[in-house]
């Protein structure tokens, strides 16, 4: 049980499988008025791709070369996606606050 808690040799697949199912289930029954906020939220999540850029920046040498610039730009653009996504979602959701029921 130490560092590794693995149930079976193909746990990765279980994980992905279940992840897909969760994703489907989460959205499936959402009232349509929330479609746009949800899309926006999940769009922001997909900005997790900046982690890739971060890893690239962290692992490569930091010279002022083409790749570094592209990576930096990528992370910047990606962050705009993430933060913008969250802010937009936030603004949309504020509308529901006044809902009484």
């Amino acid at each position: 049980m130490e560092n590794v808690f693995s149930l079976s040799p193909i746990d990765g697949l279980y994980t992905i499988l279940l992840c897909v199912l969760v994703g489907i289930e989460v959205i499936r029954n959402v009232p349509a008025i929330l479609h746009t906020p949800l899309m926006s939220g999940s769009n922001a999540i997909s900005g997790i791709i900046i982690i890739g850029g971060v890893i690239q920046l962290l692992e490569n040498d930091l010279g002022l070369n083409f790749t570094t610039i592209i990576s930096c730009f990528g992370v910047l653009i990606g962050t705009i996606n993430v933060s913008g996504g969250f802010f937009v979602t936030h603004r949309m959701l504020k509308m529901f606050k006044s809902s009484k029921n």
Partner: protein
Amino acid sequence: MILLANYGYLTATTLFVVGMILMGNPKKAARGNGLLILGMILAIISTFALSLSNTGTIPWNKIILISSLILIGTYLGRKISFSFKITRMPELVSLFNGFGGLCAALISLTGIIAYQGELNIFTKVILMGSLFLGLVTFSGSIIAYYKLAGKLKSKLSNNVIFMWITLFSCFLILFDGLMESNTFDFTISLVLLSIFSLLHGIFFANGVGGGDMPVLISVLNGLTGVLTAISGIYFENTIMVLLGVFVGATGLILTIQMSKAMNKSIRKVFIGGNKISKFKPTDLELKINETSPSSIASDLTYAKKVAIVPGYGLAIAQAQKTCLELKQLLNKYDTDVKFVIHPVAGRMPGHMNVLLAEANIPYEDILDLEQGNEYIAESDVCFVIGANDVVNISAENEKTSPIYGMPIIQTYKSEKVVVIKRSLSNGYADIQNPLFGEENCRMFFMDAKIGLEQIVVDLKER
């Protein structure tokens, strides 16, 4: 340290999923969004930790660089998102999605360039594939953005063909790039691929009708998810794979849900293009903006004041009781709803009164023409249900119109007009209504009862 980073990822995943679950409930959605933000921060920190534990030293310069990038990005994101009016949020989502796509494309480009020589075919496929998807998402989202903003309306007749040609080209280039004996220099391949990917995105998005934009955005959003998952495999990063898969799955379902809500098959949305099949030939070509029950539902909930204009179509559809339900649901959102009755709406004096009385709509919520027009001027949405002649703007601005001079309900004074009727066919006076082609007017072609019921279902949270 690794373990810590991994538990960080695990926690982040939980935060994301739980956050999304909460977002499915209007009352808790705001809290859900908070969890998503937390998750994102945690994921980034964990990444730092992970890489740190790999290298051993703390690369301050890099951390500072990245942090400042993130800060700047956050600032820009905030600025952009607050610079738009609330009614334009869907456009913004589309725009940001494009940024996500671009980011992915850039990251894979870095990957390709940095390790050009060392790439095995598997990684090559992954990277070039994600370059392709990233750029398609990017250009597609940008087109969607412009279309939603109403700044782009051109429709190419051969759009579908171009879409397939560009797609095919991309595949050719990709395939060629993978071959040992590639025709093009690899850099050229990359450039070509980029260009054709961008083009493909443009044609792909352009083929979709204005009313179907939300579906398109959802698809593109799902694509970003797939992209992220692919990159995750490349970076051997669990959380990227998982969340990518997650976003992909939500995107898929959201797409299905939305096209269902619009009563269209997904195929029709993308391949069928934007034909309005039920068109009755008319003299004047109106530029129709179609809409869907779900977007009507969200328009209505975002509104503070809604004016409902009933007409003869409401009587035919016998949708009066559904009207009451709609009103009651909206009242729960603090939305004020009033019915505006035109003197000649329907087919006999008092026709609308009979209907509304049957539905027990209180007299104080019924306005006549004059009060009604004042109310509409302050309203956010004017919802026309099965009325036509009584909202025909040609009575005001076309001297030659046979009904020129008749006082009408001035729906156009509202921020947004939504019309529900079965087709573009004319009303009793048999003259065309230019209102339906106005910029702030959205059409929902459906029987009033069925259509209202769809909207009501959408509004009802469980």
